[in-house]
Structures are given as C-alpha cells and as structure tokens.
C-alpha cells in the first residue's frame, strides 16, 4: 500500500507534534502491543473492570425485572410516554458519531492527527451503538417481539409502517452498527496479525490468528486493505449525517410543540458530534495517562478535539437560539408556550443546566490556556456529556409533559429503575471498553508505524 496517500495532509508549522520524536517502527509496535500481550497484571484495570462489570450486572437485574413486570416500573405514563429509555437512546447514539467522523471523514480529509485516536473512537462508536440499540427494545412493551420492526415474510401479511420515522430508525441504526463494526474490524486486521505474530501462548496465537483472517502483509493484502477501508469510509461518511438526522425525525415528524421543527436534523447531528468528541476526550485522557500513551495521544490531539467541540458546540448553541426564535416568530401560542415552559416551567432547572453545560462553560475553550490544560479539558468534556444528556431530557420530557390540552398535562419523575438502567448502560459501555483495552490494541499499530516512517523521512 501507499500509506502516505492516506496521510498526505501537511503538518501545520506550529503546535505540538502528532507523535513525540524518538520512536522507531519497532518501539511503536512494542509499546502498543505490550498493553495487550504484556504479562504484567494491572491492578487498575481489574478495579475498573470490576466496577464496570458490577454496573453491568445491575443493568441485567433492572432489565430482568423490567421483562418480568413491564415498563410500568419506570416513571413513564401518559402524557410522558417517552422517558429515560428514549433520552438514553438518543444520547448514546449521538456519542457514537465521533468515532465515525474521526475514522471516515477525517480519513477522507487526510487528517493525519486522527491516527492515534481513531481506533478507540471507533470502538467507542460500536459500544455506544450497542448501548443505544438496547433502549428502544427495552422501551417496547413486549421486547421479545422486537423483530417485528424488520420487514420479513410473516404470517400477519403486513409490513412495518414505512411512513414512520421509527422504522427508518431501525434501518439507520442497524446500518450504522453494521458499517461501524466492519470498519473497525477491517482496520484491526493488520494489527491482529501483529498480535498473532508476537503472541507467545498458543491460545492467543490461535484466537488472534483466526481474527487476523490469514493476513500476511503482502502487497496484495495491503492494496485490498486500502481499497476496502476507503470504500467503507465512503459508506460511513453519509452515516455521520444520516443516523442522527433520522433520529431527529422521530421527534420532528410529530406535531408536539418543541419537536415539530425543521432545524432538528442539523442541530441533532452537530449535537451528536459534540457529545461524541466529549466522550472521546473523556476516555482518551485517562487512557493516555494510565497506559503512558502521552507520546502518541499528544496535546495536539486534545487541542484539536477541543476545537471540534467548540465548533460543534457553537452550532448547537445556534440551534437552541433559532429554535427559541422560531417559537417566538411563529406567533403560535402552543409553540411559544412550549419554550416559555422550558425556561420557567417545573423543569426549568434542567433547561438552565443544559445552557450552562452545553453553551456557557465550553466557551472557555476559546482560551489556549484552557485547551492546554488536561484536567480542565477532562472536566469540560464530562460537563458536555452531562449537558447533552440534559438536552435530550429537555426535548423529550419537557415537550411531552405540557402539550395542547392543559387537562392532559402531567409530570414525569424517573424511578430508581430508570436510574439503574442508565447507570447500567454505562456499565455495559465501560465493560466492553475495558475488555477492548485489554485484548485489542487501543491505537492502530500499523498506522503509527507509517507516521514514524514519515517522521524519519523528514
């Protein structure tokens, strides 16, 4: 292959490098693969995994109880039929978007700084989509009939309602999951072969060997690899935009005031990328610290991600502004009330916290000092994660709880089962992530090798 062709972007003259100097092709491979193949037991890993796994077991408990009793254990009721399940779904699916953006769009744009974060951003996408996919199914009254969502020859003689965005969602999310999985796996194959060749135990050799699918690193292999990854990148690129657009249709196709707006698709997509980058940052900072990967995931990466967050955050802020302005400008009583109710209603705390988390605090990223401070970035990333969750809470709950008829107004209070499921989904996410860190290379080894070669050429 011609690896350079993927990374032709010229480096800016200033700023920290994407790879600290002093690495050779061998030492890069050693350092990254030692995380997986190293014999040293890591207490921190076990501790983190245990906590995550405990949360996952809590999810299992909450879900078992849910299946036994039904969705009545949650706080949902008419008029708020969409509670945490849908909030969490939109939140998780949004988080996934950063991975696709980094791996697909930045690959096509030949942004070389993506190299060291794309692998785990893609993994994060996959795990976030898994968490997201769980919620609509849990949310169904009869989850064991979830396959009814798919069009298949059936004894009912019917198709799903193709005019409903909820059905488009099924296709959007399942396509997204499939393409993300393929992309991630194809990208892993050369590294899996590296692990296979370096593994000492027979079991690891066989497992990594099967996963590497007979990769020998021949020129033909590299050629096919490059073609496949470019094709997948091309396939994944529209998904960055389409998935959250379709998710936003779930709302905007309805007539509920606060949902029925045309700005939803772009502002949902921007919000998705915003929250995704916040999550990548939230994960990247501890990982680079714990596994001493500061040389690979440099300040340059963190700063770039901060800039993406700032930009998408501003788009989101524009979305909030326009939404509110259009409510005023429409002169529609119900639209206006919906937005006044956000600001002054019983859930105003959620709305104002959202403004604080998503708009006000991230403005500090304008300052170079803040962008250079790892702890500050970590805190801001977490705040943005919370803010984006609140955004979905505001959209789902506040819009539903007071619609056209005051006689059908109501309140929504999440129960402990709601909270357990939310925390449990984080357990699922983190469990998968811990397993990924332990058993697969978090950074693409071969792409780092090409970076080293380019450094040497200079």
């Amino acid at each position, binding site marked *: 292959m011609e690896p350079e062709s993927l990374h032709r972007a010229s480096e800016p003259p200033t700023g920290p490098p994407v790879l600290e100097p002093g690495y050779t092709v061998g030492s890069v491979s050693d350092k990254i693969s030692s995380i997986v193949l190293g014999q040293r037991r890591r207490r921190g890993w076990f501790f983190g995994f245990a906590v995550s796994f405990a949360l996952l077991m809590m999810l299992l408990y909450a879900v078992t109880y849910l299946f036994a009793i039904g969705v009545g254990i949650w706080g949902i009721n008419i008029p708020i039929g969409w509670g945490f399940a849908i909030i969490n779904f939109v939140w998780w699916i949004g988080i996934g978007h950063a991975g696709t953006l980094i791996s697909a769009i930045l690959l096509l744009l030949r942004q070389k700084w993506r190299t060291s974060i794309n692998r785990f951003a893609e993994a994060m996408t996959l795990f976030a989509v898994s968490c997201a996919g769980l919620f609509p199914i849990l949310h169904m009254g009869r989850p064991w009939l979830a396959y009814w969502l798919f069009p298949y020859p*059936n004894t009912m003689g019917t198709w799903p309602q193709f005019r409903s965005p909820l059905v488009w969602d099924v296709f959007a999310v399942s396509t997204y999951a499939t393409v993300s999985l393929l992309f991630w796996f194809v990208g892993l194959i050369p590294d899996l072969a590296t692990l296979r060749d370096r593994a000492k135990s027979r079991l690891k050799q066989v497992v990594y060997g099967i996963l590497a699918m007979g990769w020998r690193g021949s020129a033909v292999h590299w050629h096919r690899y490059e073609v496949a990854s470019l094709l997948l990148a091309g396939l994944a690129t529209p998904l960055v935009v389409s998935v959250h657009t379709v998710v936003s249709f779930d709302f905007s196709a309805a007539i509920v005031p606060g949902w029925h707006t045309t700005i939803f698709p772009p502002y949902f997509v921007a919000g998705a990328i915003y929250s995704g980058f916040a999550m990548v940052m939230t994960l990247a900072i501890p990982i680079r610290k714990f596994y001493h990967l500061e040389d690979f995931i440099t300040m340059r990466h963190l700063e770039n991600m901060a800039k993406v967050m700032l930009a998408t955050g501003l788009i989101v802020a524009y979305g909030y502004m326009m939404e509110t302005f259009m409510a005023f400008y429409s002169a529609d009583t119900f639209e206006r009330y919906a937005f006044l109710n956000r600001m002054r209603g019983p859930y105003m705390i959620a709305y104002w916290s959202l403004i604080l988390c998503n708009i006000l605090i991230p403005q500090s990223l304008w300052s170079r000092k803040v962008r250079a401070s790892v702890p500050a970035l970590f805190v801001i990333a977490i705040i943005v994660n919370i803010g984006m969750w609140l955004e979905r809470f505001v959209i789902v709950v506040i819009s539903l709880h007071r619609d056209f008829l005051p006689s059908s107004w109501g309140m929504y209070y999440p129960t402990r089962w709601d909270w357990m499921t939310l925390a449990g989904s984080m357990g699922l996410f983190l469990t998968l992530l811990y397993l990924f860190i332990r058993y697969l290379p978090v950074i693409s080894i071969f792409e780092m090798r090409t970076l080293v070669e380019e450094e040497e050429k200079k």
Partner: protein
Amino acid sequence: MPQIFHHSTNLISRLSIYGAAFVAVLAGYVVYALSGSPYVTDVNEAKDQPVPFSHKHHAGELGIDCRYCHTSVETSPFAGLPPTQTCMTCHSQIWTNAAMLEPVRASYRDDKSISWTRVNALPDFVYFNHSIHVAKGIGCTTCHGPIANMPLTWAANTLQMSWCLGCHREPEKYVRPKEYVFSTTYEAPSNQLELGAKLVKEYKIRSLTDCVTCHR
C-alpha cells in the same frame, strides 16, 4: 516460526464464510415454513371429540342446514354451538340406543354440556363477527372448507392474519351470491372476478384493512 494453522484452514475459512450465509438463509426459511405448517397451526388435523360428530353425515349426506345447529350465525359474532337439546330433537327418536351417542344422552340426563374440543380458535385480541361476513356474501365453506366432507371436523385454514387480510384486501375473489352462503357444495364460477366485482359493489363491501377493524 512454525505455522499456527494447518493449511486446510484456508478451505475451512472460505467454506465457513459461504456456509454461514447459507445456514442463516436456511434457518430463516425453516422458521418461516414452520410457522405456516400444519405442525404449528393444526390445519387439516382432525380433532378427537367426546362424540365423533360427523359434519359429513349431518351436513353432507342428510343436508341439514348449517343454521339448524349454528343458530346465531346470522345475528351475532359467534355462530353458536348447539345445546344437547338440539341433538336430542332427532336422537330422542333415532339411534336411541347407539352406544356412540351415550355421552349425548348422558349430557341430556344430567343437564351437563358436552365439552367439545375447539377446532377453530381466534386469539382473544381479535374481534371477529360471523354475522357481518354471512350478511355480505361470504359462504361458510369459504373459511371452514369442505365441511360436508369432514367425518371429524378439522380446521381448513390457519386463521393467521395474512389469511384474513387475503380476503379483506381482495374480497372480490371470495364473495358469492347471498343465496349460496349456506351451500356446502357451492363452487366459484369461472367468472368469479367479474361476478365478485359486481357483488362487491352490490353488497357495498368495503375493503376494511385498518388495524382497528379487528384489533379493537
């Protein structure tokens, strides 16, 4: 370094890729085929009854009208199962000593219903009304099959939703003149579609396929 895998792995890996696709498609087909098969739906399976009542004898050979026993078919959702008294209108006079009919006489003596084994059952979440179908020119045999040839009764159709919708979507294929609704020997004429279209208009049959038509 020795090879990790035997060279036959090349073949196995290729086979497993194509095999997986094949197995997935096949499994889907098996599930689909099973869901409509008599094994699952009991279609064409004659059911044992406490008394081996023969529609073939009563409705076919003797020519008793359906409504003699199923009295409420024209006026109510349920066609009606005859009480033992209906049986006894004849069987107090004929075959009075037949051993086969002892459960009928016992039922009459003790004033206890015969518990027949149900042959055609719809789920509880489906609203179905016999009277409207009969009133709009849907014959008994359209759904219940060749009842006049059934020594023991079996279900002739799956009653699956796709089967219901088959007629609701294209009633002209199945409708018959009202005077033949209770005929057990009626056969669709060769110009069924033409006749059907005419009858659909004449009987004002609407193609009701809204969910709420049946799932109320």
